[in-house]
């Protein structure tokens, strides 16, 4: 079993959905039941593999990559088929493998117009392959391919099954993220040419191997080049997160996307960006990360306040939730910007928590829309009266989203605030303390817009226009089935955050470890005069690579 998982586990968990998609495409369009069964089956098999991976995952070695496969792939550019997961990837793979079957269950019985379940389900499964692939890839080209694979299905999902303004939203989503990806690719290529794999123990100098690139191969890159390369990745990942001011695609995409699309977008897609920071940008270019961190932090806290203000200005329920993502991801980015293990742990927790909670909120928005055929908050009201259970779930999720202790959201938010009081030694303390206060103020606004939303939709008496509407019923069994796992996880992670931290903590520490190269001390992030330390590191690196004869 272990041998099988070690060799095939990650490949299977990534590509089973794709096989499922092919299967769905092969089935006749008229046989809806078979289509659903095939899609659900494929996603469940994926989930099963994910659970198996979890079961055999060694938590005590969570800092190392596990189930690693390393095969030649594109020899011309020395890109290899490398996959592996550590404590950071694992929760995100599990989150994805959980969300997709729930989405399929949720869409049973009512596919958004223009229906066409066949294409819808197939796209969903292709999307899953892209998402999981991104989290397991350990080669930059492979990573990039998966990162891009996600775009197209989502583009069609918004463009075909979306709301009234879907074309605009879909194109905007596609182009904006593609624009970011292009810059990201440039950065990847630059790293390929400038880094020296021999410093990390590889034979070849030019490599896309992510393990090597975050293991010292980038040490000899000139500071200016590092800054530019980081900037490219910053844009690529930052747009995906999305960080202020690159967030404007998000409200449109969310508002227009079908419910399931919004859920996946919020729960997983946004995490591709933050995951990129945690996995690629920060560990590979720690020096540049330290230089950019004040900017990242600033944009993060601006996003927190700005996103919250945006929420307060919304009249549409779904758009409000979409804007809240900008604010929440601000907390995640603030955690990352501190460059401390504690802050990045908080960020990873925040990613998972946001995925669960905001995913849940989008499910709810979809269900409200099904019942009331509108999301205009001024027309809603009395949900608690007409559909008490759903009203309660909405209240619960609002509380979770505003960061109530005891629920998952809090452990992403407060630790990020705490971490920014004491960022990595190399960073300016005063600046981050100011960020801390601004971020803390954001929690007031978060409570403001969420409770205001709750008051508008759930409290009060049922509106006359919907009082006798036959569509307004309480939570259905299908909805319970799709929601229960998320609700349970929100509570469980809230009570027992250790579940995640056991895995993430060693991996985060490992990722922040600046490798010592050629006798120079590592760990420059935790030194007061970190720039000097990095300079030393660079000289040692240059020395080492010219010795090995692979330097340019």
């Amino acid at each position: 079993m272990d041998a099988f998982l070690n060799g095939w586990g990650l490949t299977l968990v990534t590509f089973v959905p794709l096989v499922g998609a092919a299967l769905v495409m092969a089935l006749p369009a008229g046989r809806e039941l078979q289509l659903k069964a095939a899609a659900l089956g494929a996603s469940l098999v994926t989930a099963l593999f994910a659970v198996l991976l979890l079961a055999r995952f060694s938590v005590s070695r969570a800092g190392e990559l596990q189930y690693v496969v390393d095969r030649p792939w594109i020899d011309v550019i020395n890109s290899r088929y490398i996959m592996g997961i550590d404590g950071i990837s694992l929760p995100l793979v599990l989150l994805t493998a959980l969300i997709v079957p729930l989405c399929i269950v949720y869409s049973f019985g009512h596919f958004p117009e223009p229906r066409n379940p066949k294409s819808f389900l197939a796209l969903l499964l292709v999307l899953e392959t892209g998402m999981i692939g991104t989290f397991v890839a350990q080669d930059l080209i492979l990573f990039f391919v998966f990162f891009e694979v996600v775009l197209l299905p989502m583009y069609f999902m918004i463009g075909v099954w979306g709301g009234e303004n879907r074309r605009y939203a879909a194109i905007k989503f596609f182009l904006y993220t593609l624009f970011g990806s292009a810059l990201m690719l440039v950065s990847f290529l630059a790293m390929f040419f400038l880094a020296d794999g021999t410093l990390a123990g590889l034979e070849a100098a030019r490599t896309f191997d992510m393990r090597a690139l975050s293991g010292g191969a980038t040490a000899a890159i000139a500071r200016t080049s590092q800054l530019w390369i980081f900037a490219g990745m910053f844009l690529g990942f930052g747009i995906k997160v999305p960080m202020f001011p690159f967030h404007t695609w998000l409200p449109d995409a969310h508002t227009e996307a079908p419910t399931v699309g919004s859920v996946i977008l919020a729960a997983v897609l946004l995490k591709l960006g933050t995951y990129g920071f945690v996995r690629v940008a920060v560990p590979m270019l720690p020096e540049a990360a330290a230089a950019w961190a004040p900017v990242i932090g600033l944009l993060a806290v601006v996003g927190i306040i700005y996103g919250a203000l945006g929420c307060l200005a919304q009249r549409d329920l779904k758009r409000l939730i979409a804007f809240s993502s900008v604010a929440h991801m601000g907390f995640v980015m603030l955690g990352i910007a501190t460059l401390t293990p504690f802050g990045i742990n908080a960020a990873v927790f925040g990613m998972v928590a946001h995925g669960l909670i905001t995913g849940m909120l989008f499910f709810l928005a979809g269900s409200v829309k099904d019942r009331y055929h509108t999301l205009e908050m001024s027309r809603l009201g009395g949900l608690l009266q007409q559909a008490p259970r759903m009203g309660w779930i909405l209240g619960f999720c609002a509380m979770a989203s505003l960061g109530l202790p005891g629920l998952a959201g809090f452990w992403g938010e407060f630790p990020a605030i705490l971490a920014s009081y004491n960022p990595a030694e190399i960073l300016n303390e005063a600046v981050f303390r100011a960020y801390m206060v601004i971020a803390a103020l954001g929690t007031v606004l978060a409570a403001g817009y969420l409770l205001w939303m709750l008051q508008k939709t759930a409290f009060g008496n049922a509106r006359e226009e919907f009082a006798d509407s036959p569509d307004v019923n309480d939570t259905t069994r299908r909805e319970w089935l799709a929601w229960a796992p998320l609700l349970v996880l929100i509570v469980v992670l809230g009570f027992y955050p250790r579940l995640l931290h056991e895995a993430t903590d060693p991996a985060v520490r490992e990722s922040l470890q600046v490798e010592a190269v050629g006798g120079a001390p590592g760990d420059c992030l935790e030194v007061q005069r970190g720039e000097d330390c990095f300079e030393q590191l660079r000289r040692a690196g240059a020395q080492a690579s010219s010795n090995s004869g692979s330097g340019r």
Partner: protein
Amino acid sequence: MVKLPSIGVLAAEGTAEIVQVGGWFLSNVWIIPAIPAASFFAILFFGKRMPRGGSELGIAAVAASLVLALCTVGQWISTVNGAHGAAVEPVVNRWTWWVAGGVDFQLGTLVDGLAVALLFVVTAVSLLVHVYSTDYVAGDVRYTHFFAFLSLFTASMLFFVLAENTIQMIVGWELVGVCSFVLIGHWWEEKPNSDAALKAFLTNRVGDVGLLVGVSVLFFAAGGTFSILEINTKALGGEIGHTLLLVSALCLLAAVISKSGQFFLHTWLPDAMAGPTPVSALIHAATMVVAGVYLVARLYGVFFEGMVIAGSSINALALIGGLTTLVGASLAFVQNDIKRVLAYSTISQLGYMVMALGVGAWTAAVFHLFTHAFFKACLFLGSGSVSHAVHSFDMKADMGGLRRHMPHTYRTFLIASLALAGLPPLAGFWSKDEILAGTGGWGVFGGTGGNGAYTAMLVMGMVTAALTAAYMTRCVYLTFFGRYRGHGHPHESGRRITVPLWILAVFAVGAGWTNLPKGFQIVPKSWTEQFGHFVEPAAAEGFYFPKIAHATPSWTLAIVSILVVLAGGGLAFGYYALVDRRAKAGGPATELADGPTSRWAPARLGHTLLAQKYYLDHLYTGIVAKGTAGPVARGAYWFNQHGIDEVVNQAGRKAVAAGHVVYDRIDQKVIDGVVNTAGAASHGAGEELRRMQTGKVQQYAGVMFVASVVLAAALILVL
């Protein structure tokens, strides 16, 4: 889990010894909050199917907690007695909750005299409120749900009280806030109720910013620990710089101001009266609102050092508390809603407690918290009983003369009112007087001691004492005396309401006797200062509690304060006696037709100012909240749509234009053949793709790809 030896004496470095204690109840105290927490889930899931809608579960759970709390109290008392005057180490049990990035989050319990006192107050009042509620909310649409949240509140409050570290305090603090939100908005069908719930939650959130920041600062200042005892010890031992202590104390003070209804964030508390009355009694009078006071008392080392309480004559804590007593008491005068009178009175009394902590009278503050819980809960439950009878809370319109109809309610309400006003020998007198004595600003009265000369606080406290007596006289008169002005026939409430009232009334009388002042020669010396003896940690070197100077009680001060109370009450009494006489002759029943406000412009002005609640609500709701949600948020969103997004759209348009240029001029003419091939491929992509304008997308993708290659090349060449 840290196992402690059952009883062993450790020699401490300093003068007094520190005794470590143990005991089953003290070590396993976590069960006390766990029981109501379990009952919350049980009621939530099974309550509706139970014969009494889940209320029986809630009552049983809280009763069990009360029994355990009493056992814990007993064990604590016996250990303190066994220590023979040495400082008793608090009983701490803790487990690692989670670890990340080198930060250790613990979960545990901390039991000392303070925690034990609160355990008793919370469980006792909660049980009485539970019993009362079975009658009060009988037949309510959300009866089960009401009891579920009473359970959750009790559990959260107990969790907060037993918190071993500041993180747990945050958790408990927020959870009680949510319960408060849910219970204030219990009748959410009406907009004013949900408005009040939102206001309470949001106002508290403002203070929570201070809590989050304060806890963060303290964590790093104390060298990476959340443990309350460690933080206190380090703060007192001079291991934390004064600036950091001051900053964190001020941040935490913001949290106290919002949670404990202190001036200037007190405005949510009167509105919170929209909730059912038992909720007001339990949450908004006896327990949750004292969380702020408890926070200060818990982290007293931080406040004591940060605010330099010893030896100064004014500090932020004392000043905020003093102002709050005055603001609350003055506003209580102009309320017509009986619950609002009590709410403002609560604000004023909480001000007393905070002021007491500010002047260093720690025991007095906790003692007042203790006595106030009983008499104020009694008053609230009494007002609920009245409203049950007359179906209104409006004293002027629907009450009057109820003493004949509701003898039990009347008597208990009167007892509690006198206790609140501070007449001896009732509970309020002892605790209030201890606070006044503790200000130390009473050299004029011939006493000594205290931590400084807080004369201003003494004056504020005295004025408030007079005001309190006066507004309670007004309240009792308007409710129980004069002519009945309501409709229908008021009747006394049932046993489930009157019995809790009587129990609380007994406490309103007797709770004060637990801490009779020492110089009071009427009773044997061993009866005096018992509360302080068991609750206040004895100061020892390297301990978690500061060495505070205790004021010696003064007969003069006591007599002056009694006279002040009598004067305040007497004036109000005289006024209403006059009203009564005129009313019998056909005048208005609730106020004089030619009172001072109608004759004297400054009085009228003052009345308007009070009636408008110092215009604070206008400022917060009208300007701050509406401003943020209105113009500011709309402005930000406008900027988003027309600023940032416009850039994006323009970039898109320009790119399309550029694409057209490239396509029309270069592609079509120069590399025609290649493009034709690509075009054919894109045609083959099918119906859907064409509908989606993918032609454009591919163009974009092409442009992007070319651009990225060019950029990559440029970057590599440049670097």
